């Protein structure tokens, strides 16, 4: 196995407040890794750095065989669009668009024409058990439905890495498990690497292994044992 993601001594501060103080991590290709830690430990910031959303103040980040912390904003955007998928806690769907347009959004942004993009998006509604909701707006979806739409959007581009930040955080435990089941199944079927940030042990139990982030550092094994 080769590393899909690697962080070396990543440090990042928000103003005076340090969020990461030298985090190291290796995620192998195809692995599902849960990033755990108490609130404020820096686990979300670590995910944001790994995904090229934030740029670390120090340290290096390698993703899919290339260094990404020195890419510019547009290059990182393209990386996110073409190689990564995202499922966040909430507020990630564009309210003005229908569910299928939301799912097709990464494809549209990537230059896929409207019709083929929507066709590919619609395939996911059946796979994730949300068929019939294609034309709904995000305001008309329940929390679980919205999260499945978000999952579909995260996977529609067949990403190499799926980043999930508290994907079940706004859901009850039953609905949350359904979403997690779908997430893990789909990711495995696509062979996608998954980085899953959660503070819930039961969500982390879906992963192959977990790493602990505390005070901006990775404390439990950063490498698969």
């Amino acid at each position: 196995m080769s590393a899909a993601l690697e962080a070396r001594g990543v440090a990042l501060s928000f103003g005076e407040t340090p969020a990461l103080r030298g985090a190291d991590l290796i995620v192998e290709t195809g692995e599902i890794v849960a990033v755990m830690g108490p609130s404020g430990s820096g686990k979300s910031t670590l995910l944001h750095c790994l995904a090229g959303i934030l740029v670390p103040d120090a340290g290096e980040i390698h993703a899919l065989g290339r260094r990404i912390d020195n890419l510019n904003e547009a290059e990182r955007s393209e990386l996110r669009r073409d190689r990564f998928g995202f499922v966040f806690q909430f507020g990630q769907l564009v309210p003005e668009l229908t569910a299928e347009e939301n799912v097709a959004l990464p494809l549209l942004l990537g230059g896929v024409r409207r019709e083929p993009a929507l066709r590919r998006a619609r395939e996911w509604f059946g796979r994730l058990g949300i068929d019939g909701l294609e034309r709904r707006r995000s305001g008309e979806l329940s929390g679980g439905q919205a999260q499945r739409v978000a999952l579909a959007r995260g996977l529609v581009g067949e990403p190499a890495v799926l980043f999930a930040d508290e994907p079940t955080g706004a859901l009850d435990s039953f609905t949350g498990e359904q979403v997690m089941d779908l997430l893990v199944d789909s990711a495995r079927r696509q062979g996608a690497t998954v980085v899953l940030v959660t503070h819930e042990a039961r969500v982390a139990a879906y992963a192959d292994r977990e790493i602990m982030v505390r005070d901006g550092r990775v404390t439990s094994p950063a490498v698969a044992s």
Partner: protein
Amino acid sequence: MIRLGLRLAVTGGRAAIARLALVGGAVALGVALLLAVFAGINAVQSQNLRYAWLNSAVTEAATGTEAADAAGWALREDYFAGRRMARVDVAVTGPDSPVPPGMTRLPAPGEYYVSPALASLLASTPADQLGDRFPGRQVGVIGDAGLASPDSLIAVVGRTPQEVAGIIGATKITRIVSVSPQDCSGCYVGVGSDGITLILSVVAAALLFPLLMFIGTATRLAAARREQRFAAMRLVGATPRQITLIATVESTLAAAAGTLLGFALFPLLRLGLDRITFTGERFFLGDLSLTWFNVLLVGAGVPLGAAVAARAALRRVRITPLGVARRVTPRPPRAWRLLPVAAGLCELAWFIDRRPRTTNGQTEAYLGGIFLTMIGLVVAGPYLTMAGSRVLARLARRPATLIAGRRLADDPRAGFRAVSGLMLALFVTSVATGVITSIVAYRGETPVGTATYDNLSIGWYPDHGGKLPAADTPIPAGLTTTPGVRDVLVVRYQGIVGNLPTGAIGCADLTRHPDLGQCPPGAQVGAVYADLSRPDFGSDVYEASPMTLAQLPSLPVNSFVVLTDGSRAALEHSRTLLESTFPDGRFPSTENEWRSDFARTLVQFQRLADVVIVASLVIAGCSLAVSLAGGINERKRPFALLRLTGVRLAELRRVITLESAVPLLAVSAVAIAAGFTAAALFLRSQLDYDLKPPGLSYYVLVGLGLAVSLGLIASTMPLLRRVTGPQQARND
């Protein structure tokens, strides 16, 4: 991507639609205004060009076709009922004479052409008041091509070559001048189009500025939601360029729609515009038109400008994939923000005693200073707002005061934005009112009851080519007996004696009319100006003349001064009589007529200033309303939660009121002070006048403006109640 942008723009919910509509509306107003200004500038230039042929005496400027037979030509200024009239006496010498525009031929002796406006006056006025001035009969009407304005009073009178040659200022011409007076140095008939273009530009800027502020306010409507939406798109990989493109599509859509609407509004504005007589004469509606260049410039430039502005705005609020959650509190505004205002006022102060010589230099100096002050106020606004909020927080006793104070102190820019338009409006109002009130106070329209301004005088000035009538020239028969004529005085020409005026009159004549200036005690003969006018300020007493009473009857006549009751019949009858008796010299006029040009211009400016004031107040009010409503909408959740936790609605109302009223009052005070200071400095520098306190209408206007603003603040209260209902507190 553009399709996606369009899709987002039109499905963005009510707030986005409102934003589109408001921006579009403001752009429409701005576009209509810009078009009106362009049309106005074009009209001024067209009108000026229409004056060209009246300058035909300036033969070296003539470019038209050469006629074989030179024509006699004498242009003089005449008046009727306070309106200026151009009279050209022409003499045909052969079949191929030069022909002015609007006519097919020059009138033969005994014939005359008149403009349509003069024709209708001739038809409705007794001949002894107007028609008798023109020898012969009317043979035609001058076509529009020969008129500066539909209201122009022009007479082209045919005379014999000998008659014309005797008229003061007569020449012979073979060509008609067709170049605009602004391109011809000797052509004095016309309007100062440069100055008027400049004034129009200033008016446009004074209106466009608040409009731009309004567009800025409207663009920020529901900005938080828009940023959230953009953040979501950035997360899934939209590049900054793509976000910019989408945002640009939205604002360009609004701007394009607004531009179309603006072009639709323009014809309406144009109908009103032809009634505003900046140049003193109404425009032909056809002259108020746009060139293709204007249309292209506005039609393509405004949407393009909007696109550029959207790009610039997004560059400032760079949207990260994580949205605005991690936004740090902006740095508080610093005291340097007061510098530009100070610089603007200092610039104006510097020009006291250093008035630039040229009109252009003056306009640049003064308008530059005033604009710098205006921009400075916008820059200083956030600092002033913060200063106000600090005072508020210090005085805080109630939670409402504390919340309002903290919020203002946290983001004074946002607090100021709501009232910025109003501040500008108040500044413009104060400057305009201060300047105009003072000018009117010093030399405005005729002071009521000054009978001397209605004295009609006809004078001869040897040093300007006039030939003095002989000493025994009688007062024209029937003049003294004309109804409404109180007396006719004869001023004799005493020649140049030291620095004294050239006229002389017996002191007894003056004593009979206490409203005239008087001789010094003991003098027999006073040294006077031909029209018996006095300086605007200073002594009512003339100096004594070295002439004796006995010498007077032997001196040539310098002028006849007809004292009238000011009635039109008396004035025009006397004038007609004098003109037919002395057909070769300058025509008689009254002091009022001399002054009326300036007075009329001033009235025009005052009216223009009123338009600017009212319009900018209205725009400012809209700005305030939009930003208040937007602010409440943006914060409905925190407010709803506060209400759930037991904060009474009255307390929230107090928060809203305080956080808009405090900046409102703080910046209003500063804007008014800066406005009057700028006005005072301008008056002192340009005219050496003192600032006069403004009239009642100013207080009414400012009071009304503030009252309407406070009313607008109050009017958002029902919105506050509605949007802070418990349903808003739920998580979604």
